């Protein structure tokens, strides 16, 4: 057993069986350098993620599916995308199934969580992440990675819910949800609440924001992060 395996065992890591290939992936991921956010914005590689869960409680509900799309050089490469459904011991409630449409059978037949998350990390590398209402996706992913892999997954997240109004102050202030914003840019989401389709819609929204950011001479990813943070702080002040 590797060092990492010992460490996982010592931490009494969850019910998952962490076998060889999973360990190899985790080792590889841990060895990756941290993301460099100082380069030109136009060449930055990003990971746009969306998660589906058994409910909206960030601290109790379970991660059901992860979808992710890579944006690089302001383009979405259609063959660089990721989707996985995590195996559940029992399918989620029916009302919830109606939202994400991951049927009970598919949930039970999903990939073993440790394996699914390790594959996700392999895909995600240490890219800066993008999500809409990012706190939710961030928390769900961090909890799952800690619980199933004993790993601290904490990349930088840029939250489009804050970045969008910051870059498009002319948009109506009533725009709040992902649905509102994709409609504003006439983005069609192929299958809303399928993780990878939502990630694609989010990535398209991000493309529109990147185009505007370039127009505004925002030159690096670092600047984009601070812009989103400032907006969040402002929104907090305004009680938004």
């Amino acid at each position, binding site marked *: 057993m590797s060092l990492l395996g010992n460490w996982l065992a010592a931490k009494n890591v969850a019910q998952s069986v962490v076998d060889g290939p999973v360990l190899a992936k985790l080792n590889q991921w841990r060895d990756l350098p941290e993301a460099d956010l100082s380069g030109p914005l136009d060449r930055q590689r990003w990971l746009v993620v969306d998660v589906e869960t058994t409910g909206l409680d960030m601290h109790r509900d379970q991660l059901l599916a992860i979808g992710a799309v890579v944006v690089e050089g302001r383009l979405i490469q259609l063959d*660089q995308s990721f989707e996985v459904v995590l195996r559940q011991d029992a399918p989620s409630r029916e009302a919830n199934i109606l939202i994400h449409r991951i049927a009970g059978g598919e949930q039970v037949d999903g990939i073993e969580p440790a394996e699914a998350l390790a594959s996700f990390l392999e895909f995600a590398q240490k890219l800066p992440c993008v999500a809409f209402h990012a706190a939710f996706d961030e928390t769900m992913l961090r909890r799952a990675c800690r619980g199933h892999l004993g790993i601290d997954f904490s990349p930088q997240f840029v939250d489009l819910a804050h970045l969008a109004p910051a870059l498009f102050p002319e948009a109506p202030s009533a725009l709040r949800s992902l649905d509102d914003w994709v409609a504003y840019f006439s983005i069609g989401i192929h299958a809303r609440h399928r993780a990878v389709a939502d990630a*694609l819609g989010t990535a398209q929204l991000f493309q529109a924001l990147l185009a505007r950011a370039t127009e505004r001479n925002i030159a690096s990813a670092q600047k984009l992060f601070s812009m989103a943070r400032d907006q969040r702080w402002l929104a907090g002040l305004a009680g938004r």
Partner: protein
Amino acid sequence: MPLQPAPSLIASTIDDLRRHAPFDAMDAAILQYIASRMSLAYFARGATVLASGGAPVSQLFVVQKGLVSGMEPSVAADEGAALTLSEGECFPVGALIAQRPSVLTFTAREDTFCYLLPLTDFEHAMDVSRPFRDFATRRIAALLEQSQRSVQRQYTSRVSDAHSLASPLKSIIRRPPVTVPPDVPVRQVLETMKALRIGSVVVTDTAQRPLGIFTERDVLDRIALAGIAQDAPIERAMTPNPFALQSHAALFEAAQAMARHRFRHVLVMEEGRLIGVVSERDLFTLQRLSLGEIAKSIEQAGDVDALSHASHEVRRLAAALLAQGVGAEQLTQFVTTLNDAIAGRALALAAEASPPPDVPWCWLGLGSEGRMEQTLATDQDNALIFVPAAGTDVAAVRQSFLAFADHANRILDQCGFPLCKGDIMARNSRWCLTLAEWQETFGHWLRSANGDALLNAAIFFDFRALHGDAALAQSLRDWLGAHVAAHPLFLLQMVNNALQVRPPLGLLRDFVKDDGDDGEFPGTIDLKKYGTRPFVDAARIFALKHGVTASNTAERIRLAAPRMRMHEDEAAAIVDGFHFVQLLRLRNQEGGNASAPAPLGGYQADAEAPLHHPNRIDPDQLNELDRRILKEALRQARKLQSRLELDFKP
């Protein structure tokens, strides 16, 4: 590290592409390949998607969402876009194939997403996918075929008989042809025909190339009456140079040739080899309404009622052919063939009641009839040339011709060709002239080049001999050809006139609609005025300038093209565009607006249409494929107009 494509993202991209031609006709495997090679890009409203000039284009753009316009760099923004592209449309295909920079600058008119496919993958798709290659190299023709095929599919699913007249000849060949060498004695051929119970044999050389045909009907004429001995070689009794068509030609084309030339067999060839013979009887068994039978009933019509009935049958058959997806060119040729026969019979009936003087004369079809482009709603445009005997009183001869023409015009009216509102008919003494008077009239128009002259020229210069002494029409045509060159101002005025009407292709998602002169047809465009006329006018001018004597628009373009150094493909695309607009007019006249919400192509009668105008359609009622073809067709009309400007304007 290899990345795992999420199957659902590729699948959703494929679904998205599949909603549009040509992707809907491509295999799953190549779509999978294309989708996995694509990236998705965003262009803010107003942003340049692709600039003209610069480096050769390195990728194909497919609009995923939004609207893109392409403009020539020299054109001011308010002049309107050369083309607008919406969801599913590809650009810049021509530049990619030629590996050159884009001619147009493409700009996002709305927030737009485009799929991008790298050049190498575009080329790979061209190599492995026939539908994609067809689309890229012969865009309009390929789209047209697709539209027609879907009409045909709808038709064949409606009728039990799977053989429509649009099926290929090959589909009804039941056995290999019986052939004989040219030196076989007549007797032996007759014995073979009797033994095999066949109505015809084909005489071929040693390489199986057909030399002639011999049919049972030839026994009387070519053997018995011609006094040919039974031991003479068959080559002396055969009909040489038999009519042949390629195996992929439509049954309809064979039927039309039979109706026009009055023969009963057509040879079917494939790659230079004879593969079968199709007889009139083979076609009759397929179609209750047959061309041959209608042609016969026209020929044998003993009175106006019978002729009027036959004319009604022509319209019914035209409707049936239209529903079967027969193309506009063949359909209008067919309508013309039979209408010519009706005119011929009407003249014969008129001659019984009021015989024309016994001097050379020729009945001319003008306008669309002269161009062989009659649609289903067509009124009369005709005229008459005669040559009085020397020393006779021209006025008296004319009077007799006018009486004859008046009969003929009224008979045609009863047969469904309404009298011309502008009185452009042979019974009008202004249009019943001697050859010398016609030359004088045409000469006057050429010299004056005023509005009336141009208007008349647009109708009369498309004349064609319908009946009588065709040599008179030919000598008038020759005279016109020889004299027009001496009147450059006339041609220039014609060009100015032709450029007054611009095919509508605005900045909006689809078309600028003209709504009718008084706004009585909101949301529609006039396909005659804005659709076919630009082609017709330009073709007439090019024919006059380059000495092309044909009167048909497609023929004029095809024949003038080499003389104006226009590439064959370019001319073909223009002709296809013209025929598509013509097809839409025909469908529209046939029964309602061309539209079918779900399947591609097709049209349905719309009982609720408030005002039905024979040449007006509402582009929104067209299905997506037809709307794209119409756009492309109108773009071809614009191209032809640009060529006019280039060639004539200083």
